[in-house]
């Protein structure tokens, strides 16, 4: 190999090593003065970017409010935002940076269950508190002593959906259309078990890849099974075309969705096809002040699922850190004792011995004229 190429290659290697070295040496852990830093992981890009960005906005509003009120014991709160991309590997890298370079005592995140599951091993081992504002997969309950979430486990939602469909709506034959993600598959399984236990019949279980936008094959099959109700567990990007395709195929059957349908983009873009759809969502007593501030920050009145939980989580953490300081073990111990009221995501937030959110109060909303409203 020619000499010049060899030199170029070594130069590249040296430059890269030096660059990494200098950029790494700039950071350090909490020194007792200066801003208090916590980490945030969420899907700022990719499929779930809507939720990630919205949650980032609500967290930043919480931070502004905290700092305006004097910060935490006169120190400003600062959040280091990292993109998890709703992907295990990326979230793991992000967490590693936050834990080892930024040396944060707490990570607020991830949003997608895949993100959170990928780094709880590392954060538990490093004794860094992890408070997820959105991950609902049941396996997180067992993830560890330092792992918390202020968002309910899927076990609640699937059961609630089944009971509502069978008892309240009186539907006995349900077809399920679900996205093959941890959220979709997790809730689907619980729904099926609960619905059958109540005595109902599941006439179809059709899954689709998360990247699919053409659900016609599945909808055609579902239509043929003549269900009373379709339980449609989908994220916005597939639900919009999915609802339109269902309408086009004349699948005139009521639709019940999951909390991912709490996204105004669906109601506006699916138009007529979204009229009358219902979905279950955690009862978030959003207050007007929060709504106004979010509208200012985001530029629309959209408040996605999980962003109220992210806001509350930030406030809870600020209170806890204010009480016990930045030692992660002390923060962890104090979190178990928290009983937070007046939040925007729930009336009362408490954590059980596994770090899971205690109880989940679901309500059903229906879409009328492009807007969602609570079912009377």
């Amino acid at each position, binding site marked *: 190999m020619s000499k010049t190429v060899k030199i170029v290659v070594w130069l590249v290697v040296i430059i890269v090593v030096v660059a990494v070295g200098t950029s790494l040496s700039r950071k350090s852990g909490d020194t007792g003065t200066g801003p208090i830093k916590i980490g945030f992981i969420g899907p700022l890009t990719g499929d779930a970017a809507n939720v990630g960005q919205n949650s980032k906005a609500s967290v930043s509003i919480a931070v502004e409010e905290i700092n305006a009120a004097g910060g935490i014991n006169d120190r400003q709160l600062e959040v280091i935002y990292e993109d998890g991309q709703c992907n295990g590997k990326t979230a793991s890298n992000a967490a590693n940076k936050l834990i080892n370079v930024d040396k944060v005592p707490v990570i607020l995140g991830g949003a997608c269950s895949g993100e959170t599951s990928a780094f709880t091993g590392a954060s538990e081992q490093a004794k860094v508190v992890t408070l997820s504002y959105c991950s609902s997969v049941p396996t997180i309950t067992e993830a560890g002593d330092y792992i918390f979430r202020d968002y309910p486990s899927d076990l609640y939602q699937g059961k609630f959906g089944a009971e509502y469909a069978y008892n309240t709506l009186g539907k006995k034959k349900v077809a399920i259309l679900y996205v093959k993600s941890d959220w979709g598959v997790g809730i689907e399984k619980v729904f099926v078990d609960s619905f059958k236990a109540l005595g109902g019949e599941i006439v179809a279980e059709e899954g689709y890849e998360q990247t699919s936008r053409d659900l016609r094959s599945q909808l055609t099959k579902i*239509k043929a099974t*003549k269900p009373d109700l379709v339980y449609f567990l989908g994220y916005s990007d597939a639900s919009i075309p999915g609802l339109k395709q269902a309408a086009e195929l004349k699948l005139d059957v009521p639709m019940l969705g999951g909390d991912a349908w709490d996204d105004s983009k669906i109601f506006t873009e699916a138009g007529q096809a979204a009229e009358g759809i219902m979905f279950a969502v955690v009862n978030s007593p959003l207050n007007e002040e929060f709504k106004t501030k979010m509208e200012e920050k985001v530029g629309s009145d959209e408040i996605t699922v999980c962003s109220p939980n992210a806001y509350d989580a930030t406030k809870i953490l600020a209170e806890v850190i204010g009480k016990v300081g930045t030692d992660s073990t002390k923060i962890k111990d104090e979190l178990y004792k928290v009983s937070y009221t007046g939040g925007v995501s729930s009336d009362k937030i408490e954590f059980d011995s596994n770090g899971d959110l205690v109880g989940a109060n679901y309500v059903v909303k229906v879409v009328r004229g492009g807007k969602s409203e609570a079912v009377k």
Partner: protein
Amino acid sequence: MNIVPQLIINSLIAGSIYSLVALGFNLIYGATRFFNLAHGIMAASGGYVVFFGVKTLGWNLYISIILSVFVVGCIGYLLDRFIYKPLRRKKSSNMVMLVASLGVFSTIQALLAILFSTQFHSLRAISPEQTFNLFGGIITQTQIIIILVSLISTISLHLFLSRTRFGKAVKAVSDDEEVSRIVGINTDRIIGATFFIGSSIAALAGILVGLDTGIEPTIGMSLLLKGVVAAIIGGIGNIFGGTLGAFLLGFVENFSVWKISSDWKEAITFTLLVSFLIFRPQGLMNKRK
């Protein structure tokens, strides 16, 4: 209710879209003999130019479509001029061209995501569409247009290639580039033109998908893969082969999920591909070389 009519309609719609993608792909392959992976992103770009025209600039939908087809054709031409032609000059192997086209694909897809975000967008207005009942199955207006456009494009292209001088020159270049050049055909210009036409047709496919369902930067790859599978099982380089393969693929996909869970739709598509690669690699319409 008998779902077979609906399945047939779904198959026709899918087949028409795949056929459009395969059409352009085959045209380019015929002239250059390499798998242009960037073809998929031409389809996505077509959808996005229309999106830009209608949503951002506020232009009329039809004008935006015509413009998009032209613009994407130009992009295809320019890619050939600045990337593929220099590679051909250097007598680069097919693999090098394939990898280069992969690079083009990644770069343009990233650009689309940066310019238009990764969010899914629909090109069509919100209002519900006119639907028609066809032998017990339902089809929308847009979907009928898709099938018609696909048929017209295939027939037009075939006529163009067989009846015009230009078309014959393309065929000559496909058969043997060296000889064509010796005979006096400006092969670079012909190839550039095939990129233009092929990319324009791909843009059409992307636009139609956008109207029927919607677009996002990642649709390029899935459309490309389906188009490639269609082209291969039909007979690579063969215009009608691509169409045949596309409809066969559409039918297999839709009818197989009837009996097998729709979970396995992707796997079935690719198993079909592998089966053809093993048992009839030249595709349905080509003769074994």
